[in-house]
């Protein structure tokens, strides 16, 4: 059984006439890294919020279809209950610091305290989450004395300590510098290897292409593509997707213009792939020239 099952999800915010989500269907398995891309206002955030139940429980509005995450029917389960199985990390690292705790260590404990986890269990969970996100050495520091990247990692650690099976991140790197961005992507990819399903809405297509094994493309509330980065981005640079022009990594656009295809079909989507294909092309070319 898939960890995430979304079936014909439709949603309209209160006082709006258009649907924010219009018939979204997809599934995700354990350990998958699913990237959600699309222009602003295409429904990425709404979809993220729908996976934990903030849509509809917090935002109200009209909802239809089915969303089942880690075995729980999201529409029928309170958010506090969902938060034991699903974690959500937001765009702004600063507003995710509760302001209620004096150290990084205690900050991670916050969610555990409010969901009634026994103290003996709290301690190993906190340590695990902090070590996984590379924050163990900073555990005594004030949460406000961290850099943006560190703060975002703290938000992830805090959510991770609740031991979710699914981690949803809504444009988590938009306020971060390139080093902080890489830290977040690396940390999240490590979580996938541990079996956690990661769903990340992002604009940074180069990094998504590198780390994700699935891409969902949203356009005006509809899902217009669902496949591996190779499939989706190849179709994107060929102009086959509804949202025109669809963003793709520069190396993929260059490969499309030059006709550099991967042996198994499609265009390279990462730097490493493009280098491999490029070297093969240039080696073949110089060989041809020397004959």
């Amino acid at each position, binding site marked *: 059984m898939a960890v995430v099952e979304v079936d014909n999800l439709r949603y309209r915010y209160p006082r709006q006439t258009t649907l924010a989500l219009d018939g979204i269907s997809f599934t995700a398995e354990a350990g998958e890294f699913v990237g959600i891309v699309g222009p602003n206002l295409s429904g990425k955030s709404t979809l993220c919020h729908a996976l934990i139940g903030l849509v509809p429980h917090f935002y109200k509005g009209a909802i239809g279809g089915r969303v089942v995450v880690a075995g729980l029917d999201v529409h029928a389960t309170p958010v*506090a209950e969902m938060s034991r199985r699903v974690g959500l990390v937001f765009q702004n690292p600063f507003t995710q610091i509760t302001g209620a705790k004096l150290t990084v260590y205690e900050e991670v404990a916050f969610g555990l305290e409010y969901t009634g986890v026994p103290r003996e269990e709290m301690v190993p969970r906190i340590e695990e989450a902090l070590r996984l996100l590379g924050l163990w050495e900073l555990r005594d520091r004030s949460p406000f004395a961290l850099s943006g990247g560190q703060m975002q990692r703290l938000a992830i650690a805090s959510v991770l300590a609740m031991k979710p099976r699914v981690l949803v991140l809504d444009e988590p790197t938009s306020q971060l510098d390139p080093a902080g961005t890489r830290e977040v992507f690396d940390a999240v990819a490590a979580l996938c290897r541990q079996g956690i399903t990661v769903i990340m809405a992002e604009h940074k297509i180069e990094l998504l292409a590198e780390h994700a094994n699935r891409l969902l493309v949203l356009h005006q509330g509809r899902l217009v593509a669902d496949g591996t980065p190779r499939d989706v981005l190849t179709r994107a640079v060929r102009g086959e997707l509804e949202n025109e022009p669809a963003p793709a990594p520069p190396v993929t656009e260059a490969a499309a213009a030059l006709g550099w295809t991967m042996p198994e079909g499609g265009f390279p989507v990462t730097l490493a792939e493009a280098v491999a294909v490029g070297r093969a092309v240039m080696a073949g070319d110089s060989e041809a020239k020397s004959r």
Partner: protein
Amino acid sequence: MRVSLYVPADTWLHRLDPMTKLLMAAAGVALTFVLARLESGAVLLAIFLTALGTGRVLRQAGSVFAGVGIIAATFLIVQGLVHPTNATPLIIFGPVVFYKEGLLIGLRLALRLYNILSATLILVLATNPADLTEALVRRGAPARLGYVIMSVLQIIPTMVAQSAAITDAQRSRGMETEGSLWVRMKAFLPLMGPLVTSSLIATEERALALEVRGFGSSARPTFLKPEVRPPHAGLVRFLCVLTLAAGVAGRLLFGW
């Protein structure tokens, strides 16, 4: 980075647990209303100021006192001018006469204001709002109430910081804000609306982040750190109750 009125330090006052300080504030406010005489009010204020002073938060308390100075002055002026029992002129500025009876009453009112303020500041300046919330939640207060208290205490300093940032942005777009008090006040008024809006949005974002950390959970909360009451808390609590009892007795027996 301070996001509340709380002033971190390591003093006997800070080391007290939040419930004891809550008791001190409550006893202080109660005494303010129990005691009737001007002299009693002054003694009470002296006690509060000593507590604030030894707690090393006197300077911050001073800023708050200065902030309400206008209200205190209003008491003196209004009562001094027009209180019904006014009979003895004390200060005369041409046609304007301040009477002794009214001034004394105004002084008592001002003293009461500062006493209530000081008692509350003993709690607010020396207690981390998070600790206070946790103490209340441990005793069964709903978690959401605790968060509301915390938000309220955190909101004002955040808005102050933000208004400074917005003022910088206004100067960067050609608005002269340097100058007389009047110019600066005129510049500040339009900021109040957006400051509130933006605080509300930040509060909503925080609320969402808390929701997804199980904040609304119906489970009974557990706590990472065991509750700690320092040895002198018992003595302080005893003194609070004793002082309150003495105040009530004194009022009933001697009209303090």
